[in-house]
């Protein structure tokens, strides 16, 4: 009998074999892929539930000087293992139905298995280098999966974009790792967490944080995530909601003592998280694409986790990671059901009235959305509450977290109303088979996971405030739907797609309409509209900022790289004498440089 606990490092290997086997035989993917992830999950569960006595570790090989290829398992990493393999398993099973008619079925599952392998490698790493191997690997798998439908026009561009953003972060990660290595001689987490603070450790912490912002889609690198939604929906659920994007928070949790020793870095992380959270939530409040709403919502929730992690409350952050994994995966998968039923439609304005057609999807999504919004008693309520308690020390952060909480409620209910209520527009049918059954475990998690979290002393005041804010968000969220204006937007839908300026124009128009209605409306009716319309405008502005400034900067950078490629190539004229001239010029310039220097 092999000792499964001592050989916990086998956990990532199952999906790796799965990927290899599927790539090799190209059939049976629907059996092999889930099976392998299930093995990881079972193995993880066995290790998790067995008495371990401290941290397990296993050194595979001595990789490089100071860098053993070592795995380690403690409660934190095993929790992540269970999340990754558990949710991964459900999403594998779900995908069998969702991807059934796709060409390249096996390729999808091979990539998905590969992703699970890298993610498990990431969470079981015992040092930054092994973690980095997984970190890069999940980026690669994510890239391949986002670009799964490579024959669609925007897909390649968005896949590249996601990739480039991640790489920008990774460069920071790598440099941070190297600095730590040069200080400490190795990058074991246990060593780093004992390092005394200095200017260099602060720099390293900031660089690592930059890496985390890339992977976890935070300012300044957050815009890739909404665009990554062009990938298949189960992929969005697994990678871009439940697992990969939480890698940054996992990293902070791993390095909690190190961050505590460098509080300035923690503060930067918290500020970035808070800002991202607020911005993303306001954008989510005006989005129309259901997957993009969920994507911005993810960015916003990740921002809250960053906030908590930055303030040192890594337990709260990890708690939210866990609950978020459940309800966000559930949201994405139910959204997937809807999209599947509507043959690819993703715009919530073209949905509506689906409550009767898809009753189970409706119930499950409502549950998930309520959990997301922090409905008292559901999982999201408790974890968000923990974050609010952590932010209590800083009034600004607390206020931001509360606003985000309000907005979360608002866009959740807006989405629910738009999708399930109102007039029924399309023919749709309830999902069946795997695509429904796999949702149950997630639903149970979304509802109950909150009771298993780390409960300190209950802060009743915070809880009450939080509940009130969430509920009011949920209530007012409905009024975010402004029928008159929305009808106008329907009429010119193509206008939004082409240029966002047009939307700005609409915002102005909407304000005009609002001004005209001002006197007609009574004051009581108006009050809830003030924050909502202000948020709407702000969201539009920020959306505009996102699309034109941040996105523009990225495109500009990419374009600059491509553009700079051309002159460099043009110099390469093919003429021997130009080349010889370049040599002589180099000689002249270097001589001159040495003369002047």
């Amino acid at each position, binding site marked *: 009998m092999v000792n499964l606990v001592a050989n916990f490092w086998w956990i990532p290997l199952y999906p790796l074999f799965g990927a290899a086997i599927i790539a090799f035989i190209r059939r049976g993917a629907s059996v092999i892929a889930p099976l392998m992830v299930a093995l990881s999950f079972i193995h993880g569960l066995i290790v998790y539930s067995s008495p371990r006595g401290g941290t397990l570790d296993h050194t595979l090989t001595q990789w490089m000087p100071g860098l053993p290829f070592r795995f380690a398992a403690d409660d934190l990493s095993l929790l992540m293992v269970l999340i990754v393999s558990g949710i991964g398993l459900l999403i594998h099973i779900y995908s069998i139905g969702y991807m059934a008619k796709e060409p390249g079925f096996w390729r999808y599952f091979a990539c998905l298995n590969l992703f699970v392998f890298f993610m498990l490698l990431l969470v079981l790493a015992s040092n930054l280098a092994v973690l980095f191997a997984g970190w890069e690997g999940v980026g690669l798998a994510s890239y391949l999966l986002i670009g799964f439908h490579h024959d669609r026009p925007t897909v390649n561009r968005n896949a590249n974009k996601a990739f480039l953003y991640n790489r920008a972060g990774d460069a920071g990660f790598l440099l941070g790792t190297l600095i730590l290595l040069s200080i400490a001689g190795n990058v074991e987490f246990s060593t780093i967490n004992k390092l005394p603070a200095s200017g260099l450790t602060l720099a390293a912490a900031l660089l690592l944080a930059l890496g985390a912002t890339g992977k976890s889609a935070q300012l300044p690198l957050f815009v890739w995530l909404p665009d990554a939604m062009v990938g298949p929906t189960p992929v969005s659920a697994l990678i871009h909601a439940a697992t990969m994007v939480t890698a940054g928070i996992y990293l902070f949790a791993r390095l909690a003592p190190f961050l505590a020793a460098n509080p300035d870095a923690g503060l930067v992380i918290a500020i970035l998280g808070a800002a991202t959270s607020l911005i993303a939530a306001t954008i989510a409040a005006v989005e129309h694409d259901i997957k993009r709403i969920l994507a911005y919502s993810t960015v916003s929730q990740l921002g809250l986790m960053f906030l908590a992690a930055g303030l040192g409350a890594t337990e709260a952050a990890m708690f939210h990671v866990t609950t978020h994994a459940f309800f966000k995966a559930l949201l994405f998968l139910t959204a997937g059901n809807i999209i599947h039923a509507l043959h690819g439609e993703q715009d919530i304005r073209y949905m509506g009235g689906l409550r009767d057609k898809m009753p189970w999807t409706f119930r499950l999504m409502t549950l998930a959305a309520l959990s997301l919004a922090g409905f008292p008693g559901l999982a999201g309520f408790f974890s968000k509450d923990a974050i609010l308690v952590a932010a209590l020390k800083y009034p600004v952060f607390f206020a931001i977290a509360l606003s985000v909480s309000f907005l979360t409620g608002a866009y959740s209910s807006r989405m629910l109303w738009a999708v399930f209520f109102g007039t029924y527009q399309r023919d749709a049918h309830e999902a069946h088979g795997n695509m429904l059954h796999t949702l149950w475990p997630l639903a149970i998690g979304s509802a109950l996971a909150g009771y298993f979290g780390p409960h300190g002393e209950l802060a009743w005041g915070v809880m009450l405030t939080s509940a009130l804010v969430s509920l009011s968000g949920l209530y007012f969220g409905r009024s975010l739907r402004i029928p008159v204006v929305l009808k106008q937007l329907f009429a010119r839908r193509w206008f939004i797609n082409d240029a966002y300026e047009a939307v700005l124009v609409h915002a102005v128009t909407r304000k005009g309409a609002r001004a005209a209605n001002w006197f007609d409306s009574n004051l009581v009716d108006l009050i809830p509209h003030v924050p909502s319309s202000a948020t709407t405008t702000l969201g539009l502005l920020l959306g505009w900022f996102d699309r034109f400034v941040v996105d523009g900067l990225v495109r500009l950078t990419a374009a600059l790289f491509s553009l700079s490629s051309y002159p460099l190539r043009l110099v390469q004229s093919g*003429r021997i*004498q*130009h080349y010889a*001239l370049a040599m*002589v*010029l180099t*000689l*002249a310039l270097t*001589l*001159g440089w040495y*003369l002047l220097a």
Partner: protein
Amino acid sequence: MDAALFYTFAAITLAGALATVTRRNPVHCALGLIFSLLGVAGLFLLQAAELLFAVQILLYVGGVMVLFLFVIMLIHLEQAARLRQYSRQWPVALAALFAVFLEIYVLAQSGLPGLPPSPQPRLNAGGNTERIADSLFYVYALPFEAASLLLLIAIVGAVWLARKKEQPQ
């Protein structure tokens, strides 16, 4: 006397070089090169490098130049001679070379610390050729052998490249 000879040979060398670089007809260029090489040979003689003088004349002027002329005859160059002779980049090229020249001049002005002092004259004690032979076969035996390999490679390469590809029967 030495100075006069030096300037004469230097003038021949440079004039020949200039002719090589500027003449339109490649045969004239080759003749200019021959003059230049002969001038260099004269400079060798002036510095008591008798063997090198002979090598320069026999090998270079005799061998290489024949090779050049042979190729010039092989490739009909009448059209080439009628074309524009200078590439369009010549002003830039001249400017760059002039810059190099200026820089070297400035370098020299900034105080050429010069070479270490010359030791006692004993250059050709025992005869130039003998001393070179000593050096070549004793100290530099390895590069000497390697040079023969280099020539072999050059022959193989040149023959291979210049020969027409056999058409498969």
